[in-house]
């Protein structure tokens, strides 16, 4: 049987003593956590270990002896160390000894109750205690699914990481403390701490309480009945800015809650939200300072009206073109003129409204631009809403064109069935044959012919306005995609992976160190960090992401039939 000993590399230069750690019998491996130096009283050591065991729930015990002699091996010391094995009975009793500055240690085990004294091979694995303690192991996805019946069959690596991480309290006492026990571990030269971190921890409690109070006020105001009346609630649901603000409010509530994060995922999520909010607000303030610096926002407001005018003029030109002979197609003159004049009148109304609003535009834009300090995402959402408002007439035209086309298609299909002598049976949801009277057939055929010959004109108008509408939808969709990206990117995790890559571990890697015959196999265990792709995937923040509602096939079908399309679905929208 192979015995594996995990030895912390910080204890390589420790003075002689006994080894304490955890023995994992299923895998025949010993994880050594610290070295207890002479002199010590065995009873006190046992007491201390049982206390540690009670607090950390890790079965820490004395595993063996460690002798670091600068001179030649002393016989008396080795006998003394063997006798210790009888006091602290542990099976097997591991004895590691290092001579002088040699890299190659000799390792042996004492088995008192073994049936057959076979020669055990020993593998010595060095590990960096501080890194393993701080690191979080991300198991591969297939083992994570079956954790319910595998509680005690946990993988060896996660047992080791777990052991070291839970034994933090063991590392709190160092050899300068005046206790009965003198330990050597990675903090044995004095416990490390950072003043800034401690100060921030103290300051965060009142800050969180203040934030919670403010947020409860704001959410109380938002939920008041005044804002729930029909026109206003419809408006709030259509504006994406309000959704984004609500989303950020939720995030703030998560951060400012007083409960400490229970496990790693919650802690990372809180940290990610915090960093994402910070970067968002910083970018927003940067944008705002750039906008207001040379009165750029005034220039923007000044160019807004001419741009809207220009768009309206382009639309008018387009309609004039459609009313003539567009692309050489021959339109039905009368219907063409009617539709064209109808849409031209709409554009005229729209331009008048814009000109009515023009004196107030600059002031409105100035105040709306101030809200960019709430975050870059809010600014982008406002941009998307402004685009939606400015192209409202395109949306209207699209709806008119689509409704007309849809009506025509339905009429055509129903009259086509009449033409062939069939009827749609609503009760049975199928097509049945039906005998029509002569006058029904006559009128039906007449209407069918009329609709059929008017189809190209309507179809052309529908096509043009649908394309325009799709253009606007694509632009809005891109902006929302960008907002989603900023919302859901786990920046803290990425920075952690960049700077402290050992904290996010995908696994370990072993390196074979120099060997010497007769001595145990020496390996170095290093942490294999998670790849950036898996970091982003594991720690992605959930968003109210918008993604295409329909597949390409159903989208094309809807376009062909003239049904109104709302291509982006938001999570949380009620399905119709």
């Amino acid at each position, binding site marked *: 049987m192979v015995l594996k000993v995990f030895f912390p590399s910080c204890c390589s230069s420790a003075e002689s003593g006994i080894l304490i750690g955890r023995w994992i019998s299923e895998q025949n491996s010993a994880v050594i956590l610290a070295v207890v130096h002479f002199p010590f009283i065995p009873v006190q050591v046992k007491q201390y270990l049982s206390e540690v065991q009670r607090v950390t729930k890790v079965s820490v015990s004395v595993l063996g002896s460690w002798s670091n002699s600068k001179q030649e091996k002393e016989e008396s010391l080795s006998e003394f160390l063997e006798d210790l094995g009888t006091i602290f009975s542990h099976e097997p009793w591991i004895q590691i000894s290092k001579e002088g500055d040699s890299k190659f240690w000799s390792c042996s085990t004492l088995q008192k109750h073994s049936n057959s004294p076979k020669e055990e091979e020993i593998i010595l694995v060095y590990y960096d205690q501080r890194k393993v303690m701080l690191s979080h192991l991300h198991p591969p996805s297939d083992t994570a699914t079956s954790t319910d019946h595998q509680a005690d069959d946990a*993988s060896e690596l996660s047992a080791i990481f777990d052991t070291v991480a839970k034994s933090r309290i063991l590392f709190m006492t160092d050899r300068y403390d005046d206790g009965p026990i003198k330990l050597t571990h990675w903090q044995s030269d004095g416990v490390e701490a950072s003043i800034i971190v401690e100060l921030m921890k103290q300051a965060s409690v009142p800050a969180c309480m203040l934030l919670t109070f403010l947020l409860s006020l704001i959410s109380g105001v938002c939920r008041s009945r005044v804002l729930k009346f029909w026109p206003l609630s419809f408006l709030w649901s259509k504006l994406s800015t309000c959704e984004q603000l609500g989303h950020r409010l939720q995030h703030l509530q998560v951060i400012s809650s007083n409960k400490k994060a229970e496990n790693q995922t919650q802690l990372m999520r809180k940290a990610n939200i915090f960093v994402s909010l910070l970067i968002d607000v910083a970018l927003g303030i940067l944008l705002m300072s750039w906008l207001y610096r040379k009165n750029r926002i005034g220039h923007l407001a000044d160019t807004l009206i001419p741009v809207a005018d220009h768009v309206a003029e382009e639309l008018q030109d387009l309609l004039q073109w459609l009313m003539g002979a567009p692309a050489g197609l021959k339109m039905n003159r009368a219907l063409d003129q009617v539709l064209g004049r109808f849409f031209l009148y709409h554009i005229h109304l729209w331009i008048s409204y814009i000109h009515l609003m023009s004196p107030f535009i600059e002031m409105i834009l100035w105040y709306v631009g101030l809200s960019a300090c709430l975050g870059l995402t809010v600014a982008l959402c406002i941009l998307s809403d402004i685009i939606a408002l400015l192209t409202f007439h395109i949306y209207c035209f699209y709806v008119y064109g689509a409704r007309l086309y849809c009506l025509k298609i339905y009429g055509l299909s129903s009259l086509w069935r009449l033409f062939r002598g069939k009827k749609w049976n609503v009760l049975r949801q199928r097509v049945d044959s039906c005998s029509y009277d002569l006058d029904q057939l006559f009128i039906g055929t007449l209407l069918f012919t009329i609709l059929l010959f008017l189809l190209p004109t309507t179809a052309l108008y529908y096509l043009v306005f649908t394309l325009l509408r799709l253009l606007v939808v694509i632009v809005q969709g891109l902006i929302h995609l960008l907002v989603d990206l900023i919302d859901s990117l786990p920046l803290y995790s990425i920075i952690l992976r960049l700077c402290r890559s050992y904290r996010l571990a995908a696994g370990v890697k072993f390196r074979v160190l120099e060997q010497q015959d007769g001595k145990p196999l020496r390996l170095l265990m290093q942490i294999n960090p998670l790849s950036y792709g898996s970091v982003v995937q594991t720690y992605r923040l959930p968003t109210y992401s918008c993604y295409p509602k329909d597949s390409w096939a159903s989208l094309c079908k809807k376009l062909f039939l003239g049904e109104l399309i709302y291509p982006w679905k938001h999570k949380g929208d009620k399905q119709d």
Partner: protein
Amino acid sequence: EERRYRSASGAPIALRRRQHSASCRELAVRCPRLQLRSLSAATSAVWLAAYGLFVLSENSMVLSAAIFITLIGLIIYLHFVKIDQESLLVIGSLGIQVTSSYASGKESTTFIEMGRVKDVVINEAIHMQKVIYYLCILLQDPGDPQGVSEVVPLFQSSKPRLDCLIEVYKSCQEILEQRKTAPQSS
């Protein structure tokens, strides 16, 4: 020790075996190096095309863009595509470690614990227009003791032929057998 073999496409590769202890073996396959002639052929082709475009368009940006593209392409190729050496470190009772080292020095490592390894076998596969042999590690399905949850192929970029694979297979099986003969202590 090191021995020479051939890869599936005929390029020369070398297998190096080291035994660190009774239960630890390292097997490394060195892939054929980047050939100077293919590198110069690719570079000359790109630069000739760029020069042709320059003559047509009289824009010197084309030339600098071509140089830039060649440099970036070479760096990306060396860092992400060209594998120099693939090695397998089998440590009995700990696990199997698979390392690929790229031409730029980057190493990508995966460690599979012994508890998850079911077996190491030689499989056949259809690759492009040939049938090749490849070595793979079968991972245990935690729910079903007889089932295989995943197959991890090894030596994918060097693609050694069957004679080399048999050597590697024998070395691995000697160590894997040890875990079956040695009873687990409770």
